[in-house]
């Protein structure tokens, strides 16, 4: 499913500054894209526009030929799943199991099918031991897993992950990335909004936002290897690329070391 942003502008109230100043891009089916940018650059606003939580003041957003707007929301949300940074905002039920089932009920899934889908989703995020637990009693990392499971159960075409790993510990993050890679192989479109440059490095394409504008949209490795661009966008390079860049700047000559760093950067 193709996502199109056509000259999208957004601000919260008349007189306030524009959060997005005319954004255009197209993301094709099965792409794995990272969106990076400083605090307040418009990343999360972009995600909220895409799922129809907010509406552009100018321009339009399309999923294939469906325009993202109020009367199409039921349709849109079957195709897009989003995991927010703070999973607390996304729980509605009193048990992990019910919470994962909630989205399925919303799209009128038959009961037998629902049971299978909920089981599979719980298993995919390794939360089998907690299926009857209250979501509010879980740790931050566990809540994040449940939020992800809720989306997996619906199995949408497009996944938006908004700083979704920021509350996960290393093991949780590793599991999460594994899940994302499986989704990618299954042909899903994945958009990762992140501050973690090593995480962005996993993606194929990278869009850089700065003060509500796209300042770069390209192959991830090229984007994240552009020191000046990242610096002026108030971001930083992934560590291996940063060291590579610093050594180059100092005319460091040991090719073996430089190659090793490059290899590490490209390791997915």
């Amino acid at each position, binding site marked *: 499913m193709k996502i199109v942003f056509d000259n999208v502008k957004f601000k919260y109230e008349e007189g306030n500054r524009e959060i997005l100043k005319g954004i255009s891009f197209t993301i094709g089916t099965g792409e794995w894209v990272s969106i990076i940018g*400083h605090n307040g650059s418009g990343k999360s606003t972009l995600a909220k526009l895409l799922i129809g939580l907010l509406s552009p003041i100018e321009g339009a957003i399309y999923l294939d030929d469906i325009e993202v707007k109020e009367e199409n929301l039921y349709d849109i949300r079957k195709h897009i799943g989003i995991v927010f940074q703070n999973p607390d905002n996304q729980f509605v039920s009193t048990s992990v199991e019910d919470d994962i089932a909630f989205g399925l009920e919303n799209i009128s899934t038959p009961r037998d099918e629902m049971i299978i889908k909920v089981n599979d989703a719980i298993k995919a995020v390794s939360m089998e031991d907690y299926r009857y637990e209250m979501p509010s009693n879980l740790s931050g990392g566990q809540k994040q897993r449940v939020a992800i499971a809720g989306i997996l159960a619906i199995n949408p075409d497009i996944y938006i992950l908004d700083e979704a790993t920021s509350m996960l510990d290393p093991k949780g993050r590793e599991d999460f990335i594994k899940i994302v890679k499986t989704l990618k192989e299954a042909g899903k479109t994945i958009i990762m909004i992140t501050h973690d440059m090593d995480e962005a490095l996993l993606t194929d394409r990278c869009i850089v936002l700065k003060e509500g504008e796209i300042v770069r949209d390209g192959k991830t490795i090229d984007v994240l290897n552009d020191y000046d661009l990242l610096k002026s966008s108030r971001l930083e390079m992934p*560590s291996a690329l940063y060291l590579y860049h610093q050594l180059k700047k100092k005319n460091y000559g040991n090719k073996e070391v430089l190659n090793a760093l490059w290899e590490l950067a490209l390791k997915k």
Partner: protein
Amino acid sequence: MGISLKEVSFSYNPKRKGTVYALHNINLEITDKDEFIAIIGETGSGKSTLASIFNALKIPTSGEAYVSGIKIKKIRKRRENYNNIRKHVGLVFQMSDYQLFENTVIDDVMFAPLNFSKTKEEAREIAKHSLELVHIDESFYEKSPFLLSGGEKKLVSIAGILAMEPDILIFDEPTAGIDPSTKKKLLKLFKEFNEVHHKSIIIITHDMNIVNSYAKRVILMKKGRIALDSTPYELFKENSDIVKDSNIDLPDTYTLIDFIEEKTGIKIDKHLKNLDEIAEVLTYES
């Protein structure tokens, strides 16, 4: 004076049979000058509970806790409170920017000193000084805190704690969800508090790069106990099993150094604190 914990245990529900203790038998000394401590550990390991005892937000179930010589115990008389402790130990919560509530930046920062019975003039002086420490200039004083950027809000909320003039500052996950350049600014500020103003800094974090680059001492919590109290170097270099068991990352410098050695045989000193130092050493040695 600082903080002194002797066999401190804490349970949220001590009377219940088989209750789980969030803290077990903690013995700890923290001085009120020049320390830079990182408290790390998995979610639920007791990090935040420990920090809230430092600030008398929680009272030990057993054992003794002293902050600046004052014993933390249940308040029995109405006139007693822990204002004295909070003057010594300032705690900045993870979502501290949600705690701003006054109409202007300067009023927000003046709130604490006014509460500690300073005059309006004194409070304003203290607030100005606190805002200077976080590099927020006069042009912000009359602005509404709600119209500031996320990073600026964070700085104002820190100034609000500094206005209590604490010797020890605790930051709970100060960099979660903050972009790289704002993060760098904050950390530079903490370093300044520590090295120029000789305050003790305690930072609760999941970010091992921060631990490696900034902390002088690291306390690893595990299931309510202190699993290790050492320098970052000792933790990451000598106790890699502990690192694995505790589900924490290695700092980037360690990962890079290991990878370079594996590929090229070149050994680099793991005491190095950041990537710039590694670049320096590599170029110097070649």
